[in-house]
């Protein structure tokens, strides 16, 4: 299987206009890699939440997309990074209903539920990096009751 060249890119996240490009690019890359419609929708929605976080809380940053493969399975990895104030309490930020910016508090926790792999690195003053990966055809992440 060839690697979709268009899936590798770096997009700036500086305004809410950029959120539109982020969604369209992730949609296109996911479709190219063979993601089904529901999985495309989940990944694009997760990207929208994370890009908005980057913009609103991180003061802007960027998203990198990268096609990955593991044991013959295609995936799409998205990395959102900003150099904003960072997150002091990651556990609190990931819990539903927590918001510091007038949202619904679904951003981080919700995005985590929509992807297969989720990793976040953040510390006060050092910015935030969120890396998520979804795989073509893999069953959804098991539900965790919290």
């Amino acid at each position, binding site marked *: 299987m060839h690697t979709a060249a268009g899936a590798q890119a770096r997009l700036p996240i500086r305004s809410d206009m950029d959120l539109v490009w982020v969604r*369209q690019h992730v949609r296109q890359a996911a479709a190219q890699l063979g993601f089904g419609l*529901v999985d495309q929708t*989940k990944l694009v*929605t997760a990207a929208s939440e994370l890009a908005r976080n980057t913009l609103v809380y991180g003061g802007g940053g960027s998203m990198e997309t990268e096609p990955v493969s593991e044991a013959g399975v295609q995936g799409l990895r998205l990395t959102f990074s900003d150099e904003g104030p960072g997150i002091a309490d990651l556990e609190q930020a990931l819990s539903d209903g927590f918001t510091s910016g007038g*949202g619904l508090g679904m951003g981080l926790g*919700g995005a985590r539920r929509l992807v297969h792999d989720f990793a976040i690195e953040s510390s006060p003053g050092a910015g935030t990096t969120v890396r998520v990966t979804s795989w073509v055809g893999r069953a959804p992440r098991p539900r965790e009751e919290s």
Partner: protein
Amino acid sequence: MNESFPGPQAGPVTGHVPVLRLGEVLLVTLQGDLHDSTAQQLQQDLAETISRTGTTGVITGVIIDISGVEIVDSFLGRVLAEIAGQTELLAARSVVVGMRPAVAITLVELGLTLPGVHTALSTEVAMDLLTRHAPSSRFGGLRQESP
């Protein structure tokens, strides 16, 4: 910086979303990828249109057709919920119509179920519902009418 930056497939919706008036009902059709500010502008436009109609007849309902919307994230979800709430405060009802299956599945997984937002599968069902003069309480009959 030499970044590869593919352009959009279809131009995003910016500015105002057209609000169509059909008798006592306002019809809004959302298409494609919505700009955040456009969604907020729509929220304001709807509230003003409903409250301004004293002389030209009363608006009793709002239909928001989202069949052309590919994703609903928590921002757009919040806007839809707020439109439903403000519409009710202005003595009208609102119905969200035509949500795509993939969008519904994703919203539930995201943790957003939009309590208080009435839904219908088609514009026809929503229209029928809003123009009935003895409305069933809280759209109780709506689900049964869906195929």
